């Protein structure tokens, strides 16, 4: 028998596996930090799906037609499904859903800052589907190639649904832009309010992204935040133009040399204010989640008690 393999040796082999493109599965050895980082990222992702139900759920009872109501219900239901699916994928790393939710409710775990903005008019539902799900698709398509098997598979499955979300959002806005003057104003207003927060979804600039280097070495992240953000902008600007929406950035223009759009400057003060809990709806979102959890306690207790009584 071989002598005990050292931690350093294991870590070296782990890195070799990653470098040669081998996917890591739950039972494989992994550095403790890799596990921790994935738990942090994946649970944050799952929380975002669930908290993300709130701003859109806000308009389900006011959706303006039976079709729009059905589509929005289906969309928000998908997001709950994504949450469930990613929670399960995260559980493969040795943490359970109850603990993750506890971390969310106590503020220990974060969720995407975008959901701390209010949905003020119907066009916001279009803007979320188009911009927020659009940004999510860029992120998740990259994550679908990440080194952790359960996360990567979850992303592949989820991305299919995100494309439908993205289309229905764009369709809402396209429809409004062909409508009355008031509807067009609604759509432009939503565009103005959601554009910059959508760009913030990709996180801080690489220079200020503390975890980036390590995550890229482990292929948890495959592209830098700035690259993904640029990809989103390049893809979205022509879509906005096609339906007559103006992007609220006077520095935005096509650069024929780089073959990318040049654009302005994100208000990072706003970004840090929102992620540290001072966005417009942080308080509402958290109290809605904590409230649902607390009000549901007796229901979960009843289900557990019933199951206990009827074990056979």
């Amino acid at each position, binding site marked *: 028998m071989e002598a005990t393999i050292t931690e350093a040796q294991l870590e070296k082999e782990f890195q070799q596996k990653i470098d040669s493109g081998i996917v890591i599965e739950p039972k494989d050895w992994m550095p403790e930090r890799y596990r921790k980082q994935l738990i942090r990222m994946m649970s944050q992702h799952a929380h975002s799906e669930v908290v993300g139900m709130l701003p859109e759920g806000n308009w389900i009872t006011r959706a303006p037609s039976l079709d729009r109501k059905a589509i929005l219900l289906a969309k928000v239901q998908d997001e709950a499904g994504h949450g469930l699916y990613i929670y399960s994928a995260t559980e493969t790393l040795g943490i359970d859903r109850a603990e993750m939710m506890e971390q969310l409710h106590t503020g220990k775990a974060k969720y995407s800052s975008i959901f701390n903005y209010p949905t003020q008019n*119907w066009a916001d539902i279009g803007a979320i589907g188009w911009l927020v799900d659009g940004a999510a698709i860029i992120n998740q398509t990259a994550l679908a190639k990440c080194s952790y098997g359960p996360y990567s598979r979850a992303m592949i499955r989820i991305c299919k649904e995100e494309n439908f979300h993205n289309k229905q959002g764009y369709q809402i806005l396209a429809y409004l832009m062909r409508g009355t003057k008031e509807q067009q104003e609604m759509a432009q207003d939503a565009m103005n309010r959601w554009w910059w927060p959508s760009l913030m979804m990709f996180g801080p600039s690489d220079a200020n992204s503390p975890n980036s280097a390590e995550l890229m070495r482990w292929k948890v992240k495959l592209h830098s935040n700035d690259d993904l953000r640029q990809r989103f902008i390049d893809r979205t600007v022509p879509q906005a133009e096609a339906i007559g929406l103006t992007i609220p950035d006077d520095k935005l223009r096509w650069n024929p040399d780089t073959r990318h759009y040049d654009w302005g400057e994100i208000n990072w003060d706003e970004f840090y204010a929102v992620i540290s809990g001072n966005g417009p709806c942080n308080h509402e979102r958290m109290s*809605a989640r904590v409230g*649902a959890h607390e009000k549901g306690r007796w229901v979960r207790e009843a289900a557990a008690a*019933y199951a206990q009584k009827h074990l056979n």
Partner: protein
Amino acid sequence: MKESNEALFRYCLRIGDTSLILGHRVSEWCGHAPILEEDIAMANIALDLIGQTKIILNYAGELEGEGRTGDDLAYRRDARDFYNLLMVEQPNGDFAVTMMRQYLVSSYMFLLYSKLRNSTDKTISAFAEKSLKEVAYHVRYSGDWVVRLGDGTEESHQKAQSALDQLWFFVDDMFDADETDMLMFEKGIGADIKSLRIDWNNMIEPKIKEAKLVIPEANNFMRMGSRSGNHTEHLGYILAEMQFLPRAYPDATW
């Protein structure tokens, strides 16, 4: 409208409005359910109900023949022209009220659609056939929760019993047959409400018993009126919310 069409039109509104308002109520839970799985299940139920609404209200619009669509009927009628069961407009209350309401109404729908499957009206029978599968799931889902809550903890038992007590006031309204019901039954289009009531009692009693709950005394005060569009105060608020956009922007389409 011909007289028979008029009766069928009304009959469709009763079915469609009941699905629409129940779907609306259930969808109010979205994002706030006690368990994530329940959020998914309730969104699913709401989605089924809105789908059913679309079929039947569109058909009502055709029968009327004045160019109104299902959307027009859903979004541009006032409360007195709605014919949903009073039970479905009752507020969600706690999870026990929502599940009990769902169970009582879904059981009613299940039995009604089982009969309407044989309707001489092709659209109604096709609608019933399609909806029956969905409603069967709603019965199972809410019935399981009624039992779990009734036979769960002391607290959940009390909440389930109180849900049953408060919703029971609206049971007779479900079976309050009028001339439209009679006419539809005679023509082989609609269901016999008298036998529906018997079937419904037979269906729910064992489940309520299994849940260790007690059906309230028969001589309770009963609230009625849905057949003539007489509602509780809750419906007006539902419509104010639901119809806001089409009412505020009457020239817009969405």
